[in-house]
């Protein structure tokens, strides 16, 4: 299909949103229609995307194809068209979003069936896909920004999908506001870019950036730092990661689609998209890599001590996103994107799998009217018996995320670590980042195995009555899991490293080259070769396996008590369990003071006290008081009147003679 039909991929889910939205308001019970329309539009969009991708595959374009839809904002030199850009990078993203999106939509048909907000859910989900596609297809920063904020909105709506719980609504709001902090950075970056390059089109940025900025200069560093602030918000990096764990309040398919596979990777996408800028700003790149590596390690460490199955996955996502930034920060943009893709597969699988588990647990508790936590792993155990398909698929995903060769995660993670190690030759600090990455990989393997062990192995702790009701999810849910499982396993073929040979020159790196070449020219990637490479690979593999084994052993070493009987954590475990108290610190250092200052100082004191009290009512009161005083002078005594009269007369005579 001709790329000019690309708008259909956006229009289809948007139409789905409209249909489902109207149904949600008018006929919330029409679940049949919703079940058809919701995933249907996505599959159609995927079909369109696939056929366009096929066209691109056969005839890769040299230059990005820009398809203007209409003139959007125009003022003076600023001319922003609402136009879409099709190139190798957006095509990859397109496939991931529509593909994984379709699978998750199908899964949701089963998962959300019982929910009264079924139509609303699909409306939001469709809208999200539409915005996500605008984000990746937008040909300029402002259009991208439409999608950028749009997905944030959908994320907000979906996190707070069960809005009756205050905690959920809080989580949604938190997500949006933290994202807005990032958006602030994107906005400032846009302003700077516009006033230096004169355009916000990506093609223009790529074309003019090398001449407009001095490589390594302050300006470009500032621009990229602000851009990265946006990326950190959207992709949950330190210090803005705090919203993502809370975002697990949304339905699990949402966590899979938005908070694992697609939206949260938008930051990585943006760095890749503006790679020309980052490649010209080594300091910023270093910051990106550093923040990524630190986040990877930091989040992974928190993941070690979480009991909520989704929280573990959430911190895992934050950690994996950190990997991606470590990659793009090391100028290995294609590696970042590669990990983005494989992560989309295995993390979506993990989330959906956990969804399947929660689904089962929920049913079990629902049947017995128990109010236990269906997401707490301490209440699970031994589930492999009841959910065999889910168990096996999640085990595959665990190997993938842990980086066990030859699962997909192994290749992408290895490429990132290699790139970081390679950059170490230039900036030794990258060795530290690499070490962080390796440590994080160890922890990843550990906590994933811990998750598997607590969930699927050992004795079942759900309860004797509840066990009766534990059973595997329907086919409509396991089907997508199977496909994702396959992708998680073989995803590595997308970009096989050199030592595997053969297909390597056909890989993702090659495919993305037209897009990333200008950046590569500024900052070439140094991949270690030969023996170094081999050592790194072996070390990474061993790390993964060591982590897995350790996780397995450690978890099953002693019996696990169920959630309600669990005693409090002690020592450092407690710090980890409480996520280093970061939320509490933010709350008491930023949020509460801000609200208090706003209420007590700005509103009560400045506004009501000083301006309105002293200034406005004060002057009114002063006038009234003066008037009252003047009235007192009017005592009714004629003698006084005469005295004032004569005094006035004397003054007047004096004034004349003077």
């Amino acid at each position, binding site marked *: 299909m001709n790329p000019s039909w690309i708008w259909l991929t956006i229009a289809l889910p948007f139409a789905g949103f409209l249909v489902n939205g109207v149904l949600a308001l008018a006929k919330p019970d029409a679940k049949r229609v919703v079940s058809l329309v919701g995933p249907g539009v996505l599959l159609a969009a995927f079909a369109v995307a696939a056929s366009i991708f096929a066209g691109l595959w056969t005839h890769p374009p040299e230059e990005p194809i820009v398809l203007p839809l209409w003139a959007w904002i125009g003022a003076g030199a600023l001319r922003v068209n609402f136009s879409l850009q099709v190139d190798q990078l957006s095509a990859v993203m397109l496939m991931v979003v529509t593909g994984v999106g379709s699978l998750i939509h199908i899964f949701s048909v089963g998962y959300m069936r019982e929910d009264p907000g079924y139509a609303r859910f699909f409306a939001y989900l469709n809208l999200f896909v539409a915005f996500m596609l605008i984000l990746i297809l937008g040909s300029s920063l402002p259009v991208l920004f439409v999608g950028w904020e749009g997905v944030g909105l959908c994320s907000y709506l979906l996190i707070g999908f069960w809005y009756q719980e205050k905690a959920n609504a809080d989580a949604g709001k938190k997500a949006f506001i933290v994202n807005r902090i990032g958006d602030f950075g994107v906005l400032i970056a846009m302003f700077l870019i516009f006033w230096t390059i004169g355009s916000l089109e990506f093609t223009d940025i790529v074309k003019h950036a090398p001449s407009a900025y001095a490589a390594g200069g302050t300006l470009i560093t500032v621009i990229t730092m602000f851009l990265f602030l946006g990326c950190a918000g959207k992709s949950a990096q330190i210090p803005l990661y705090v919203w993502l764990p809370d975002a697990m309040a949304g339905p699990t398919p949402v966590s899979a689609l938005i908070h694992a596979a697609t939206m949260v990777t938008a930051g990585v996408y943006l760095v890749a998209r503006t790679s020309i800028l980052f490649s010209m700003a080594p300091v910023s790149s270093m910051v990106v890599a550093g923040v990524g590596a630190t986040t990877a390690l930091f989040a992974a460490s928190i993941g070690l001590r979480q009991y909520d199955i989704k929280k573990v996955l959430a911190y895992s996502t934050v950690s994996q996103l950190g990997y991606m930034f470590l990659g793009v920060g090391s100028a290995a943009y294609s590696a970042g994107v590669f990990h983005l893709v494989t992560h989309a597969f295995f993390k979506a699988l993990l989330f959906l799998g956990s969804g399947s588990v929660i689904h089962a647990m929920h049913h079990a508790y629902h049947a017995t009217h128990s109010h236990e936590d269906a997401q707490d792993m301490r209440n699970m155990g031994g589930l492999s018996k009841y959910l065999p398909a889910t168990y096996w698929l999640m085990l595959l995903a665990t190997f993938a995320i842990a980086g066990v060769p030859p699962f997909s995660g192994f290749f992408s993670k290895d490429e990132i670590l290699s790139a970081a190690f390679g950059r170490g030759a230039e900036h030794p600090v990258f060795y530290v980042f690499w070490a962080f990455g390796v440590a994080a990989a160890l922890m990843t393997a550990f906590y994933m195995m811990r998750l598997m062990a607590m969930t699927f192995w050992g004795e079942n702790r759900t309860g004797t009555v509840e066990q009766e009701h534990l059973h595997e999810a329907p086919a409509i849910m396991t089907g997508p899991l199977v496909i994702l499982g396959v992708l998680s396993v073989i995803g590595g073929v997308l970009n096989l490293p050199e030592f595997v040979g053969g297909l390597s020159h056909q890989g993702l790196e090659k495919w993305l080259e037209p897009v990333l070449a200008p950046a590569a020219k500024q900052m070439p990637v140094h991949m270690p070769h030969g023996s170094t490479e081999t050592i790194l690979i072996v070390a990474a593999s061993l790390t993964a396996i060591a982590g897995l084994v350790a996780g397995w052993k450690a978890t099953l070493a002693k019996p696990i008590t169920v959630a309600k009987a669990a005693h409090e954590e002690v020592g450092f475990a407690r710090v980890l369990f409480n996520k280093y108290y970061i939320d509490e610190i933010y709350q008491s250092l930023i949020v509460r003071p801000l609200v208090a200052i706003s209420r007590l100082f700005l509103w009560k004191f400045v506004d009501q006290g000083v301006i309105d009290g002293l200034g406005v009512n004060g002057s009114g009161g002063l006038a009234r008081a003066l008037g009252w005083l003047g*009235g007192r002078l*009017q*005592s*009714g*005594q*004629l*003698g006084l009147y*005469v005295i004032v009269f*004569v005094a006035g007369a004397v003054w007047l005579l004096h004034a004349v003679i003077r």
Partner: protein
Amino acid sequence: MLLGPSLVLSAILFSIGVVGVMIRRNAIVLFMCVELMLNAVNLSFVALSTAHGFGGQVMVFFVMTVAAAEAAVGLAIILAIFRHTKSVDLKNINLLQG
């Protein structure tokens, strides 16, 4: 010529009248002080007439007429107030104030 001294005398008389109005509290005395002021001015007119012709002297007659009219009206008003307050002391006349 006694113009200068006459004017000075007139000014002094006028001032005495003013001071009287200022310090006295009896309505009738007050009014008498005003009459004194009017007559002080009359003295000025007469004195100035010696320099400028009879215009000033004409004025004196008018002033005397007016003073008579004022006296008639004024005393009537003072009587009216006396009927209400049984006093012509201005201290007691302060219903209107504020």
